[in-house]
């Protein structure tokens, strides 16, 4: 393993992060805010270390798989560490653990916060907080790869950052995948910013909310999240873009380009949209039946909350902590299922759930008719056995991690619903949970140990478990 090649990419990652720190610093400096100095110092630190890594290392033509894994994992950890600096230096509600938690939550696009008063944050720091979502949305490493010149190292890193399942719907060459991701990501962000601005948000809020929506993050500039604006157009725009951001970017690209294979012909996308629609209907009817809201309002709130959690965004328009158990259970299901692979959505991913049930159906048929030869198919194509196996192992690992997290959180005497939902919400990179960490609440009340554990969970979720496990195996053998 060559440490130099890993450090070189870390350097580029830090310099890229430095660019957003610079923007945040400018915003802060123009308004003479208290976050100016913390942002400036963080900027200098990022640039000094980034420059050292880039200037002192040789360009590498090729990185091997283990170096790729180490670059990606260390890239995330270093990004989160440097990202915690502005918070830590600014203080108020941020101590070391809180700053780390907020930074990891931002970069992994989880959107869980420890802040009781978001609106107290200066605008420069608010912008940096939202931009951590945007950088982490497709992965800061992706941005670096997009900027760097073409080399075979890029393909290794791309393969490490993008799971094999998420690469299935990219019909472009691997070199073009990066460009497709970049175009879709940037296009959606610009379009949503414009629409939110037209709908009545200030430009600053529109940019911040677009960053958080397209990255399916969930950090808002307001204490009441989207509920603050109390505007149906803003809610509808946010819902549409949350759904789009949870669909495979390769499919979005082919749809825009008018290709035959698009979101309307994709079996998994149609199933995903159908499941979301069913979820909205169940929740809305339950809310209406329980007399919580009139029918129209029930659908309005149900749609927003189901889409928000089902796409792992985590915005809120109401506090779901007071909703009936059935509605909470449906929301919890969506917290586990999440969006599609190849999107910015986190969690288990709908594709895996779909493949799992397809494989299950095949297995049952096999048991009933032992001589029958049947294979699981999606869009008329056979699902490779290794993808099915990978999916099953992933699901088992996923469940295992959130079970272990729940048990450890319970050891801190955290109530079971809070512990359970916090575990799912963090490993799924969703954001809010229920009870003590509900949609309009925050994670500040949890003990420091629990916050550290949950931030590790977020990293596990964002790196899709296997990368971190692979790194542990590499270091052991």
């Amino acid at each position, binding site marked *: 393993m060559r440490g130099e090649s890993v450090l070189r990419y870390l350097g580029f990652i830090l310099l890229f992060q430095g660019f957003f720190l610079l923007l945040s610093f400018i915003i802060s400096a123009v308004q003479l805010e208290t976050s100016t*100095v913390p942002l*400036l*110092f963080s900027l200098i630190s990022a640039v*000094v*270390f980034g420059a*050292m890594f880039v200037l*002192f*290392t040789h360009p590498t033509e090729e990185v091997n798989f283990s170096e790729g894994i180490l670059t990606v994992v260390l890239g995330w950890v270093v990004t989160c560490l440097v990202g915690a600096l502005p918070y830590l230096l*600014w203080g108020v509600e941020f101590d070391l653990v809180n700053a780390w938690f907020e930074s990891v939550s931002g970069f992994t696009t989880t959107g869980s916060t420890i802040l009781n008063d978001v609106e107290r944050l200066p605008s420069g720091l608010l912008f940096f907080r939202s931009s951590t979502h945007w950088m982490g949305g497709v992965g800061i490493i992706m941005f670096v790869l997009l900027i760097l010149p073409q080399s075979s190292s890029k393909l290794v890193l791309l393969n490490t950052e993008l799971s094999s399942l998420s690469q299935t719907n990219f019909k472009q060459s691997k070199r073009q995948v990066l460009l497709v991701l970049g175009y879709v990501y940037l296009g959606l962000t610009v379009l949503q910013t414009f629409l939110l601005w037209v709908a009545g948000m200030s430009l600053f809020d529109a940019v911040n909310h677009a960053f958080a929506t397209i990255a399916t993050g969930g950090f808002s500039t307001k204490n009441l999240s989207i509920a603050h604006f109390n505007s149906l157009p803003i809610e509808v725009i946010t819902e549409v873009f949350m759904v789009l951001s949870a669909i495979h970017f390769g499919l979005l690209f082919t749809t825009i380009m008018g290709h035959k294979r698009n979101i309307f012909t994709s079996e998994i996308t149609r199933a995903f949209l159908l499941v979301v629609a069913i979820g909205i209907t169940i929740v809305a009817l339950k809310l209406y039946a329980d007399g919580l809201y009139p029918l129209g309002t029930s659908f309005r709130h149900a749609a927003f909350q189901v889409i928000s959690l089902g796409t792992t965004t985590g915005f809120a328009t109401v506090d779901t902590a007071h909703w009936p158990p059935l509605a909470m259970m449906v929301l919890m299901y969506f917290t586990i299922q999440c969006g599609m692979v190849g999107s910015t959505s986190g969690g288990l991913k709908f594709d895996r759930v779909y493949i799992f049930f397809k494989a299950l159906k095949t297995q049952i048929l096999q048991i009933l008719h032992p001589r029958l030869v049947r294979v699981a198919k999606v869009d008329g194509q056979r699902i490779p056995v290794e993808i099915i196996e990978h999916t099953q192992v992933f699901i088992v690992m996923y469940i295992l991690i959130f079970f272990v997290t729940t048990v450890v959180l319970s050891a801190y005497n955290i109530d079971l619903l809070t512990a359970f939902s916090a575990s799912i919400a963090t490993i799924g990179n969703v954001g809010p949970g229920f009870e003590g960490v509900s949609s309009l609440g925050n994670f500040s009340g949890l003990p420091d140990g629990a916050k550290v554990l949950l931030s590790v969970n977020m990293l596990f979720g964002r790196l899709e478990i296997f990368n971190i496990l692979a790194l542990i195996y590499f270091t052991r053998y």
Partner: protein
Amino acid sequence: MISKLRHKIFIGILLLAVLLAASGTIVLHQFLLLNRSVTALIEDNYKTIQACQNMLEALEREDSGILLLSLGNWEKGRYIIDAADSVFEASMAVAAGNVTELHEDERVAAVRAAYNEYKTKWQKPIVDTDKEGNLNWYVTDINPDFLHAKEAVYALMKLNQNSMYDEASVLKERSYRAIMPGIVAIVAVIVFAFLFNYFLRQSLMAPLYELIAATEKYRANMSSFSFSTKKTDDEFRELEQGIQKVISKVHKFYDQKAKVN
């Protein structure tokens, strides 16, 4: 990628200097702000709060003086009232000259108005008039104005106390912000030193060991001199080329010597 070693060392030290200078400047800046906050706390608010306390004390003493006058004790009553009045006026001047908060001027004006109203009551003669021994006059005429003046002073004091509390919170935040860059800078410099050492080992020590090994190898079998597995273009490359030239000259010398013999 910098090729020359001297540039690498210079840039490394320059980066370290930038980090240290930035953290030093930031800490200094934060301490200056801290100093300004402390000054503001003392000058802007504490001074007025102290003046308000003096005014309240003076009002209380004036009230006792009025009671003495109404009991017919003219000399002692007037003495207490005049002394308290001069204390009040002096404190009032301090408060009026230290208007630093929003709406503080209105509060100062309110104190002045209330006190003037109160003062007109006890400036007129009391002893040997129908006011002497008249408890009813004290309760209906004097006491409400006395309470009103006290309330006005309390309002001014509260404004400054609230402001002082806010300023103390800011002070707490500023002291945190003055300390944190220092702590982060210490950690950053330690990390930087380790990494710089790693890079120097890679660029300086590793080629040096390679050079020693290559020289030893050449000395052992006098065959070709091979050095540098990495494609670098630093001073070691120049050194290698120099050694190669020397070796070729030595070989030439031995060849010529052999021919002559």
